[in-house]
């Protein structure tokens, strides 16, 4: 059994798991997580491996609660990743996590708020294919000035080779500089829709962001100030979209 302490956006957590499965689990660590020494942790996760004959299964616990059990380690890793990302998002003392895709473009961030499954990843991919820099496809952290940090999903680590022993985040892309929000795009996919944007006010844009902000109930003051700062200097548009590539071209031309 091996225990690793990590820190991400000011949140410390501990993960204990059989040493031979850590390589696969590390792919689930939050972006930009860094190792920290043993000590108190905001959340503790534990992966237990059990053998029945030739079959091995894995159970994931968050604290004392059983979160998931599967014979497929990848499934457990996915659940662990989700739990870790949300533990960070809910507890980070200095970043506000919004469900949004984000890319960098011409020195500012284009932010696409929306819940999981709204098609953010597809649109972010299309924006990146159009020349933008990938920042996030699901959760976008904002600092108190309303600037967007990169939050790229980590690369998978191998057990051996140059990456062994390092946390995934340090390999998953260097921390790109935070960018001010230049454009907020409120959109959703509809097969037969064509891109026809209407301008939103800054207040409207802030409200769209708020509807997708994870810790808004627990930290409403910080949320309001941060979202206000993000929306104040940004242009905001709303439209349904059809194909992501078509919408991406139009969106990039707005900045």
């Amino acid at each position, binding site marked *: 059994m091996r225990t690793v302490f990590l820190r991400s956006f000011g949140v410390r957590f501990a993960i204990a798991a059989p040493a031979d499965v850590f390589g696969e689990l590390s792919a689930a660590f939050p972006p930009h997580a860094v190792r920290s020494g043993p000590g108190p942790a905001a959340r503790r996760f534990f992966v237990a491996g*059990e053998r*029945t004959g030739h079959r091995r299964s894995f*159970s994931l616990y968050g604290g004392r*609660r*059983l*979160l*998931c*059990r*599967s*014979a*497929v380690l*990848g*499934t457990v890793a*996915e*659940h662990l*990743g*989700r739990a870790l990302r*949300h533990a960070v998002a*809910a507890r980070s003392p200095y970043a506000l996590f919004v*469900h949004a895709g984000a890319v960098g473009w011409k020195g500012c961030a284009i932010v696409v708020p929306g*819940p*999981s*499954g709204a098609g953010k990843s597809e649109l972010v991919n299309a924006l990146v294919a159009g020349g933008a820099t990938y920042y996030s496809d699901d959760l976008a952290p904002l600092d108190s000035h309303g600037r967007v940090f990169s939050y790229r999903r980590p690369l998978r680590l191998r057990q051996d080779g140059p990456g062994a022993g390092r946390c995934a985040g340090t390999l998953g892309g260097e921390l790109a500089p935070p960018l001010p929000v230049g454009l907020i795009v409120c959109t959703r996919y509809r097969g037969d829709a064509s891109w026809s944007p209407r301008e939103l*006010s*800054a*207040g*409207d844009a*802030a*409200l769209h962001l*708020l*509807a*997708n*902000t*994870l*810790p*808004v*109930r*627990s930290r*409403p*003051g910080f*949320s*309001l*100030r941060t*979202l*206000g700062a993000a*929306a*104040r200097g940004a242009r905001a548009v709303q439209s349904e979209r059809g194909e992501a590539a078509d919408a991406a071209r139009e969106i990039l031309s707005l900045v």
Partner: protein
Amino acid sequence: MNPRARNAELLVEHVGDELLVYDRLNHHAHRLNRAAGILWQRCDGAHDRDALAAALGEAVGGEPDPSVVDMALQELSDAGLLESAPGASRVSRAQVVRALKFAAVGATLPMVITLVAPAPAEADSPTAQPAKKKIDLSGKEAWVLGVAPASGPGLVGGITAFTGFPGTTPPVPVTVHIPPGADIELNAENCKNLLKMMQDALEAMMTGGFAASQMQIQSQRDAIQSVRDQCKGVS
């Protein structure tokens, strides 16, 4: 009684010329456009309806119109942003717009837009749509044994409003704890699938395929009974 703005338990942020107001009591967030913000901030108990109309007309341009003030005060009151509610008869937005008959009405009419701030589970939900009626599993420890499909994050065993489960590639059998705030619409298909997945998980718990304490097994039984009760008569 002259209208008076409520201050207690409200957080206010100026965004451009609009106001974002967060109500800590009920977790509602309100956007007040410029006209509504001006009006709300003048509601100090000293200004009556006519004085508010004059102040609004001066601030946004145009003729003072008490019916606009009546409508705005009703919207502010409905949003819970006034301590003392207006006593005038209700005026709908449509009535006011019809009466005003000028093109720039959208920009000068006070407007309050309200949303309920997402609870953590909702903000995370892949299918955060309001369901008509939900299967209530709050306060219960329960598990399901199902199949997470290759596509459609959040789906397990065909239940489309299950929060907290990522999709997997390829589809794999998985036993999962039903997360707090699981958003499962009460319908016949979900009842059938959920009960089967919960029964399968119970069987795995009883036969040792899924390590569980006696307390967890009993909790699972209770949860199954609760779902059965809720699903009675659902077609």
